[in-house]
């Protein structure tokens, strides 16, 4: 079972709910792993007491120019559709940060002068927590492309925790990174808040899920503030509301300190029970 927590809007509670749920499931005796896929700003580890077990360097492949046999024909620059290669009269310049790793330049080069070589884009870290593991993808600063690292983090989690329930904490938004974090999951839980911002971004996320033909449900966080727009929308669109998490400054305070919420706040624990029950009902 693999479940992605996503949201259009940032700051709606993806990490709060996914970290607490993972810990709660572990306490119930389940084998569970949490993967933090918000590789641009990973922070699940801030909320979980854990020790670092393993670090793997995450690479992407990009061409490296080897001068020796190069005929300076310029074919590489011609076939690169991402402006990552510039053919100068006497040298070939490669801009790895623009490279999409399509291999066209390397494989179409008549003199094999552009072998693909790994270059670092970030790290994948595995942490051991109380009763469960956490896998984190962390993009290096200045790197622009999050998707390859998200894919590698999921792959790492699948490979090393094949029998566990996998909870994926996705990045915010609705574009490629979220698609990558959602497309291989059994179910996606969209977390929103009952405000016009929450509703606007939920609609965008729902559009994305529909194109992906992905099964999904909604959690309304900070319930009790804002308006009824999200509820009405879910009702009209027949989207299941898995739970409503009450708006509560005490939750925000615990969060601010990096503490787990459910051991201290009863209504929050009740919401986790709703989620556990819902997940249990999935096939």
């Amino acid at each position, binding site marked *: 079972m693999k479940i992605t927590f996503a949201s259009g809007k940032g*700051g709606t509670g993806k990490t709060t709910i996914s970290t607490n749920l993972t810990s709660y499931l572990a306490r119930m005796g389940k084998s569970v792993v949490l993967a933090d896929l918000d590789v641009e700003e990973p*922070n699940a580890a801030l909320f979980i007491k854990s020790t670092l077990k393993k670090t793997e360097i995450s690479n992407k492949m990009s061409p490296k120019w080897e001068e020796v046999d190069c005929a300076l024909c310029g074919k590489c620059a011609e076939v690169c*559709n991402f402006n990552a290669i510039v053919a100068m009269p006497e040298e070939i310049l490669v801009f790895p940060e623009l490279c999409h790793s399509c*291999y066209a330049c390397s494989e179409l080069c008549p003199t094999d002068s552009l072998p693909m070589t790994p270059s670092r884009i970030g790290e994948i870290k595995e942490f051991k927590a109380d009763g469960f593991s956490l896998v984190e993808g962390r993009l290096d600063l200045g790197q622009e492309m999050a998707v390859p690292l998200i894919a590698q983090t999921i792959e790492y989690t699948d490979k090393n925790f094949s029998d566990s329930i996998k909870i994926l904490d996705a990045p915010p938004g609705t574009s490629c990174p979220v698609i990558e974090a959602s497309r291989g999951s059994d179910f996606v839980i969209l977390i929103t808040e009952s405000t016009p911002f929450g509703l*606007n971004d939920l609609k965008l996320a729902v559009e994305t899920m529909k194109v992906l033909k992905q099964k999904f449900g909604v959690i309304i966080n900070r319930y009790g503030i804002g308006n009824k727009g999200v509820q009405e929308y879910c009702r009209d669109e027949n989207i299941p509301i898995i739970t409503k998490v009450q708006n509560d*400054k005490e939750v925000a305070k615990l969060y601010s300190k990096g503490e787990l919420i459910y051991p201290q706040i009863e209504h929050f624990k009740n919401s986790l029970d709703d989620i556990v029950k819902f997940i249990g009902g999935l096939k």
Partner: protein
Amino acid sequence: MREVVVISGKGGTGKTSFSAAFAYLEGSNALVSDCDVDAANMHLLLDANFKNQSDFFSGEIAVIDEDDCTNCGICFDACRFDAITPTDDFHVVDPISCEGCHYCFRVCPHDAITMQTQKAGDIFISDIKNNTQMVHAKLCFAAENSGKLVAKVKEEAKILALKKDKEFVITDGSPGIGCPVISSLSGASLVVLVTEATVSGLHDLQRVQKLVKTFNLEAVCIINKYDLNLDMTQNIEEYLEEENIKVVAKLPYDDTFTKALAKAQPIVEYDENSELSKLVKDSWEDIKSIIRNKK
């Protein structure tokens, strides 16, 4: 014309609420742009009318002609994105996975593959509250590289600001540190970092500030929800001092922001004379004087 870019690293810290408040306060002296093209929602607070729409094209996807395809599999071998799948009679492209690299198109021996330009988004120029305009966008599903759309939004906003002789462009950036954020930051006269007094607020602030530094940009900071955790606020202030970043406002945790949001109003419109609004107004004055005093 000077550009103020509001970013946050972490989502949900109040970035858009502040940007919209600044836009409302500055009125016709500023042009507004929403660079959070992934999940744009600033228009909700500023009553945008989506008056002028244009298509934005970027990137391409491969399409295989069923009749010309001989099922030789050369495209399948070339594709590094698992975007090509064989069927009994021909190969097909999954448009979601296709990266638009042209490799298959180049190696197909039967010219069965064409590259089709994709619409990547809609760009809007809208009239908004307080007698000014905003440029905003909506990214299409699975469109490539939202950074390019961000760049286009910024370019349109700058052109319009110059044409209309505006003193400021106020830009609402996107969360994270990746491509759209890097694109949002380019050419900023001043960066406003919005954070909150939480462990993740500080963590994400530090990451995004490192990025800001690599571009040699000057930044100021707003600490939101400072009273949630006074120790954390202190940690954030110490960090900012080391980085030489001025705190232009510290705001308490207050549901009034959400109430204003529910009424689709910036805080300075919803509750004009409140203490919160005063803090926001003071911070905007502070930001303006910092920019005006720059060479």
